[in-house]
């Protein structure tokens, strides 16, 4: 029999509402994973965390790299001039003509305008001390190892610049060349004398 008193009181109250667990539909899980995958791909190609920063309108690190104005002789000369003016120009003069009592000229100098640049590269890397002859003039100065703290590329750019400016017409120097010379040189700390440099391969 039906219990009348209960029925009158609250219809349907004899069944407690419950929440049942049911697994999410498989397709939602698959779609979420696919979206995550492509999101991660997009994130990866549009700038990596903590590293290079890729801003609009650039879309990838490769594209940004391709737009760096570092290729070509003009870029090397421009970079070389900037380095030269701040590091070398104080003594050698921004026109490369040297300054009496401070530094000899670089224009048409037999130390600069040479076929190879092995000897020239050693001068900023190690420094020079004592008497040295430049374009028939005797100098007895000391030059510190001004180039030792420059990066390979910066030193190469500055050598390219002094070999290719003010009427000098000698070949360019690349960062890899400097790297090689640095590796071969080892740990020389004493500045060279003019005699030592002369004995060195050009």
């Amino acid at each position, binding site marked *: 029999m039906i219990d009348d008193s209960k029925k009158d009181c609250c219809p349907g109250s004899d069944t407690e509402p419950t929440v049942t667990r049911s697994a999410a539909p498989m397709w939602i899980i698959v779609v979420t994973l696919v979206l995550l995958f492509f999101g991660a791909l997009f994130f990866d190609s549009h*700038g990596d*965390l903590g590293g*290079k*920063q890729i801003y609009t309108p650039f879309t990838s690190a490769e594209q940004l790299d391709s*737009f760096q*104005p570092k290729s070509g002789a*003009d870029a090397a000369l421009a970079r070389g*001039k900037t380095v030269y003016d701040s590091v070398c120009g104080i003594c050698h003069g921004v026109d490369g003509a040297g300054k009496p009592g401070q530094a000899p000229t670089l224009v048409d100098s037999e130390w600069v305008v040479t076929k190879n640049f092995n000897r020239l590269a050693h001068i900023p890397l190690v420094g020079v001390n004592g008497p040295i002859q430049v374009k028939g003039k005797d100098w007895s100065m000391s030059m510190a190892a001004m180039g030792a703290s420059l990066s390979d590329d910066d030193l190469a750019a500055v050598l390219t610049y002094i070999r290719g400016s003010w009427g000098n017409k000698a070949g360019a120097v690349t960062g890899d060349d400097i790297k090689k010379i640095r590796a071969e040189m080892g740990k020389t700390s004493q500045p060279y004398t003019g005699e030592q440099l002369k004995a060195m391969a050009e």
Partner: protein
Amino acid sequence: MKNGIAIFIAAIVALGASWCGLVLAPSLQLGPARLTTVLNSTDTYPLQRTGEASLGLQVYRANGCAACHTEQVRQDGIAVEVMLTSLGTSKAEDFKAFVQSLFILPELAPVTNTIADSLQAWNGDLPKIFLVTGDKAIADEMVQRVNAAGVKSQLRIAPSGPDLARGWGTRRSVAADFLYDQPVQLGSLRAGPDLANIGIRQPDANWQMLHLYAPKSVVPNSTMPSFKYLFAVRKMAGAAPSPDALALSGEFAPPAGFEVVPTAAARELAAYLLSLNANVPLYEAPFTPVTSAKP
């Protein structure tokens, strides 16, 4: 409560996910930002502000300048221009003929029309930009070819966009520009012009002072409110105004015998505005400076 733990965990995950996206990811990306180097140079960027300009940043903040001014320049695109700088010994007609002869190269096919168009009415004036393209490889190829033929040309990296066309900058703003800003005040409304490069556009401190005191005295159509309270109107000590008094005239001038002098806050704000200068090429925003560093 049924399933309390599950709801708690779901709430933590939801909040944690947005924290990762809005706080963790940006701080991993921009947190390690340090001084950077100007492209093709050994100069570091950005420069630390002077003390006065650093204080000015707080004046800028206190007066709500960022409510109407932004400090970020947008950039829509980037193009590579090939600029002819010297013809060497050849004539303009020779150069045109030479470029025509290159058109058979398959790698130049996408740009032959634009080159032909730009060279058609050209009468030999230098420098001449004869190719603008979004493809750096094509531009590199073109520079190599024409330089091998004895003329001189160079690549120019040219950012573009409406903000740049308005003269508000030469490249987009990047995170490095704001390294020393505390807080960073990008702004989002442009009731007034963008100020990312105001230090270059209006490098005169006196102009900045006049503009703050009475904007309409230097820009007749300005809608900027006057910041008169950053200045003091005081009686002249002698017959002549003191050296730092503003040179005001007409309706903006103070009563006879009085002068308008900037307070410390006005000087700091002007110093801050003059320090806004985001105009050097960087790795993440490259461009070719207009003044070539070439000897």
